[in-house]
């Protein structure tokens, strides 16, 4: 493959919030540290914020996202749980009904399914079915996505299951800066939020070149994170790279893979990091597609009835007369996530380049 080019996100200053909204000195953080910092900030600000999950307490989490929190805030606010995902979410719903603001962790998104009933039937519906008498202000954090040789049960991207559920919000950050600001906004939000953390980019942005050394966040501008409170509003996408030729909608790890591939190809694409999938920032998407006339969607999740299908539908409905080519989807294939064939499965630079050729043909 080609040599690694400078990260196009490095020039993106628009995604950084105005200084006035931030608190504290800016320090270097990777995504795990930023997520840890968000919980730290929120636990200090609000006594009702509690962190719970498998291995999150004394040990600080299998990815270190909750390191040090139990020592600082005590065992009744940061605690280990039994290994029962339906229990973790069910208990969190009850805590929310009491008036707490729980931040439960599901160790891997692949293991969120035992909690689906509590999320879909309870957390998502509680406000609606009680006409606002009870609410479920949970933020369910869970590492998700592939690119780490995680095989079938440490690589999945189940966001489409949750965006389909009325009453849930789904958020996926792509940088340390966004991760902290979005997580703070999610914890403050009175609706249940599914907060998926792309574990492939916990330690550094991944450009899709699995055969070259991994980068870390130390040289990336979005690795500069305010130590105090700030928030990035839910429901707002970020234009990562402005362009005229094609709009590329993506989120999570794929933001970096797309951005790097675009830098390598020299295509003048407009890259949009959705950040929040539900509710979707439709204005930013429409404005972009109406300008470029072309739309490509890139996600790791399997294709059929993945979130890309919804994106494709809304773009088709709203921008039909502006479209100059069929909408392209570059996604995971409709198979379980394979172990040894990971790089054939992963929607990386090769597949994105081919899709670009197709969509830019005429």
């Amino acid at each position, binding site marked *: 493959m080609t040599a690694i080019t400078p990260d196009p996100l490095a020039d993106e200053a628009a995604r950084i919030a105005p200084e006035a909204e931030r608190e504290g000195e800016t320090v270097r953080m990777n995504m795990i540290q930023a997520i840890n910092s968000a919980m730290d900030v929120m636990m200090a600000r609000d006594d009702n914020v*509690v962190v719970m999950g498998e291995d999150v307490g004394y040990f600080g989490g299998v990815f270190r996202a909750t390191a040090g929190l139990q020592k600082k805030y005590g065992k*009744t*606010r940061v605690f280990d*749980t*039994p290994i*029962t995902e*339906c*229990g973790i*979410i*069910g*208990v*969190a*719903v*009850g*805590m*929310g*009904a*009491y*008036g*707490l603001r*729980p931040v439960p962790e599901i160790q891997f998104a692949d293991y969120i399914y*035992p909690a689906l*009933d*509590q999320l879909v*039937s*309870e957390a998502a*519906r*509680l*406000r*609606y*079915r*009680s*006409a*606002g*008498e*009870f*609410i479920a202000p949970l933020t369910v954090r869970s590492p998700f996505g592939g690119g780490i040789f995680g095989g079938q049960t440490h690589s999945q991207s189940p966001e489409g299951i949750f965006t389909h559920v*009325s*009453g849930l*919000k789904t958020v996926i950050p792509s940088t340390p800066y966004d991760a902290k600001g979005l997580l703070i906004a999610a914890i403050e*939000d*009175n*609706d249940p939020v599914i907060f998926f953390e792309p574990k492939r980019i916990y330690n550094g942005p991944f450009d899709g070149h699995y055969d070259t050394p991994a980068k870390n966040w130390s040289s990336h501008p979005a690795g500069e994170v305010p130590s105090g409170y700030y928030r990035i509003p839910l*429901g707002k996408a970020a234009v990562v790279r402005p362009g005229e030729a094609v709009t590329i909608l993506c989120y999570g790890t794929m933001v970096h893979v797309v951005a790097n591939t675009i830098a390598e190809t020299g295509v003048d694409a407009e890259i949009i990091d959705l950040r929040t999938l*539900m*509710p*979707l920032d*439709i204005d930013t998407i429409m404005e972009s597609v109406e300008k470029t006339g072309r739309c490509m969607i890139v996600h790791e999740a399997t294709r059929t009835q993945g979130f890309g299908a919804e994106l494709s539908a809304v773009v088709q409905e709203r921008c039909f007369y502006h479209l100059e080519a069929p909408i392209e989807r570059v996604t995971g294939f409709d198979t379980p996530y394979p172990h040894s064939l990971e790089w054939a499965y992963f929607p990386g630079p090769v597949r994105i380049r081919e899709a670009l050729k197709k969509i830019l043909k005429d």
Partner: protein
Amino acid sequence: MTGDPKRANLPPMSLHVPEPKFRPGDDVDFSDFDIPAADSARRPDTGDNPRDFHELAFGLVRVLDDQGKAVGAWDPKLDADTLRTMLRSMALTRAFDERMFRAQRQGKTSFYMKSTGEEAVSVAATMALASDDMCFPSYRQQGILITRGYSLVEMMNQIYSNKGDKLQGKQLPIMYSSREKGFFSISGNLTTQYPQAVGWAMASASKGDSRIAATWCGEGSTAEGDFHSACTFASVYRAPVILNVVNNQWAISSFSGFAGAEATTFAARAIGYGIAGLRVDGNDPLAVYAATHWAAERARTNQGPTLIEHFTYRAEGHSTSDDPSAYRSAQEWSSWPLGDPIMRLKNHLIALGEWDEDRQAAMDKELAEMVRAAQKEAEKNGVLGHGMHQKFETMFEGVYEDMPWHLKEQQQQMLDEDVAAGRPGPRR
């Protein structure tokens, strides 16, 4: 069947599929039914170790004997006024059920579920709790709301999904919610309330509060995974919660054997979790009160959770959509050895010289009138059969705290389509 010829001579195994003792048309004989004497159960200290509850988990806590006398260590020694209040709430629950069942048959609502025969389980338990303890009920504990003095008209408004319905017609009838009365929003999904109650109790404890939580599920629902996760959490964190299992013998058409009752009691499940387990005569209001009071004290003093199996009988069909004569003998309820909870409490009060048949008849008449008056009042707000009573756009409210653009758009689309089609109905 086996592929290995070396095992060809072994006797074939067989699969056991439980079967209830009596089916439609069968004569019912409960003569082998083991009923422990009313004064036989020991009353442990509330701080005792759960591992010492074996005999209580397999026995039956009872207070009222065959003569209607309160006997034994579990006698809560309630005064006559309290007993009359208890009787009244149970009778009101039954009168309400009768009326609403009929309302469903008259087409005034789509659905109803009675709690006939199980009134003690909700009423007596609620009376043993503080008024601000939080209840996480299933759909068959309407007696909680009635005991706490919730408005009958509000309950009926919900059942009718009428314009007075506080839940805006969003919920199936009887899926009440009352934060004010400490009554958690009922969900159709079974036993989801169990871990939620535990979480509420954990939150209360972690905040240094003095309130406890109580939750109810049927014996059939103990088979759900949430029952297991709730018991595990309750035990691990010693949550101040009372886990009630209402064993009314039937889960729709499935008898309790399909939830594991042939092998053990439901109270005995507590043993494996390290939770104090009590098995109680659920048709004995004083036993239900005493056990709940005991469990509440245990919870409030940080001694941990209690699982109470209320041994009772579902006297009526599962719901208005169910016909129990299709799967069980009609004689079961009339010959049920533990009787009717209302009759037993009535006989107790009469035995004490604090009540008589005339007063009972007068009370029943008064309660029937009260329910009828409430029904009249509620029906002023409409009944389900008479169209949609809520403003259509409320359908989109409360999905989220603030309505996102896509719901606003769908809401507008619905209103536009509605106007274009000339559909009658309340708007704006």
